[in-house]
């Protein structure tokens, strides 16, 4: 499909765009907490992907390549937002998730708190790990760091969440345990 898209086949390009947008949208939403912001990032990622498709030497590594672009774009967006407001997670993400009951509001606050505590790269690592079920090595590739660094990011993120009294029982599966 990548080859056909590079060659200019419209349908293949649309599928490529949809796939890239989907990957980026999910990662960015889980990192930024806002679907509209994530859609902006996903649009940028998709534009990058369509523009750079001709340079992708190994079509089989398409997803990994998109993850790398997404990581870069998402971190940039996250840092830009951090400069404006340290932990300003808008409500729209939670509202759009259909959470409205008291319990859901409580869950939302827990999630807000969890994300607020994580620095950008840890948020992104967690998103890659738990949204896309990437292995540690794949998370590292997306972040452009060593495997050990990715493992440390994930470990610290889990530890941070574990130390939070509201998330005291949080015990996600270790990295790479399942796919």
């Amino acid at each position, binding site marked *: 499909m990548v080859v056909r898209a590079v060659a200019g086949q419209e349908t293949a390009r649309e599928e490529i765009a949809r796939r890239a947008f989907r990957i980026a949208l999910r990662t960015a*939403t889980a990192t930024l907490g806002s679907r509209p912001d994530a859609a902006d990032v996903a649009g940028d990622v998709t534009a990058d992907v369509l523009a750079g498709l001709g340079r992708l030497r190994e079509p089989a590594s398409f997803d990994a390549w998109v993850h790398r672009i997404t990581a870069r774009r998402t971190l940039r967006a996250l840092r830009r937002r951090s400069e404006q407001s340290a932990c300003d997670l808008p409500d729209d993400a939670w509202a759009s998730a259909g959470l409205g009951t008291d319990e859901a509001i409580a869950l939302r606050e827990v999630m807000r708190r969890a994300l607020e505590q994580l620095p950008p790269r840890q948020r992104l690592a967690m998103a890659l790990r738990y949204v896309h079920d990437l292995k540690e090595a794949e998370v590292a590739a997306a972040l452009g760091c060593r495997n050990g660094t990715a493992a440390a990011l994930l470990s610290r993120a889990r530890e941070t969440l574990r130390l939070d009294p509201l998330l005291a029982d949080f015990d996600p599966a270790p990295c790479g345990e399942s796919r």
Partner: protein
Amino acid sequence: MSTEPDALRQLYTYARALEPTSAEIQQTLARCQRATSRTPGRRHAAVLAVIVMAVAVLVAALVANPFSRSGTVSAAEAKAQAAAALDFQGGWHITRVTTTGEVQPGKAPVFSGAVTEDAWHAPDGRMRVQSTIAGAGFGVCCSLILYAGGERQIYMADRKSTYVHRFALAADLRDDERAFLPPSAADLYRAAYRDGRVRLAGITRVQGRDIYRLEFDWLGSSYTLSYDSSRRVPISSEARTPMSRFRLPAQTAGARGSFVSRVRYTTYEQVDPGPLLNRHLTLPAGARTAKQLSDAPIFVPRPVQGASAARLARAVAHHMPGILPATAHLADASYAIVRQLAHGGMAAVALIPNHGGKVSVSMLGLGGRTTLGNCISIAEIPHLGGEAVTTSTSCNGTSLGFWNHDRTNALVGGTTTARRVDIRLHDGTTVRATLRRGVYFAILPAAKARYPFSILTTARDGSIKRQLGAIWTPLPQPLPGE
């Protein structure tokens, strides 16, 4: 297990279930359509289309009097010139450089890297297009496409690979070639002339030559051509489309700029069939030693509504790895909707059960969009007995756009709760979709499908939900007067 881990998992479940909306995809494609004329192939259509446009607008200019104003060419002679220039049945050689970008009010235009395309065409249908891309941020890249001997060969020197697609039917090859050289693109400009749309915006004299500036507007875009009447060649052209064209009226805030595509022609000449042309209609020597990879076409039995679509589903899974979830039941796929198209081809929507991947609507939460959990895949069989062209595939009920070179534009989507689906177009007219087995299908008027529209879903309880949609159809577009 406490609720907290569930809560975090729920957060990620939310993210995992997200699907881009049709409007998001189409707007991104629209945004990239000109910007990504860097990628080889797509730009061939656009670029060559504008080349043909140049010739066609020339016709308009020649016949519609502006030439006589210069006193250098009579109207009759202009008509004869234009007729010859429009005859693309013969051999020709065109080289052009395209830059694309955005223009915002009060700001300097931002253009991407340039794409240079060198195209040779023979009267017997052989065509070779070599593309070279150069620009900041994405280095230099090139590709080479050759149509000859019933095959499409894409040679990528950097990968040392040649991708070969052998067509079973000549008609399928012609359709594919039209994606790179749509003959109908010329129709747009002929029609613009016939419709009296082309106007002469000015004549300037440059180095002793009369340069005509010809303009016309169509479907929200404006087109300009600079034509050298002395040398009888187009010099440059520009297509400009306001960003607001891709938005509904309520969305126009922040979309005041325009997408711009500028083309400069460096070669524009007729070439008689013979050794010179033949020499340029081959792949380079490196292609002979490159890895030959087969890009096999998809063949399926003639689709019948309700019949098995297993072969199509397997072909989709094979040609687009990862597009269907592992939980999809390919063997149980069936055709939910089959429609005969105006040009004689068929469009078929396959419903592929996906029992393992169902996602709750509340978790999707995308403006009340309904969801299937099952997957839908659209295929077109342009010519009976020929290959199937898979256009789009989606799970989770995302609506999909469908278009082809015969200007059929359709919207397809999935819904588990609707009893009726209507498409409200930008001008207020409504098209009712066919709804069968949780899949809807609506053919939209080509001209109106170029604008965003609303999808109105009426649930069984009578409630109506609305979401935005758009179909981006780069070429060909409906003609003036159609």
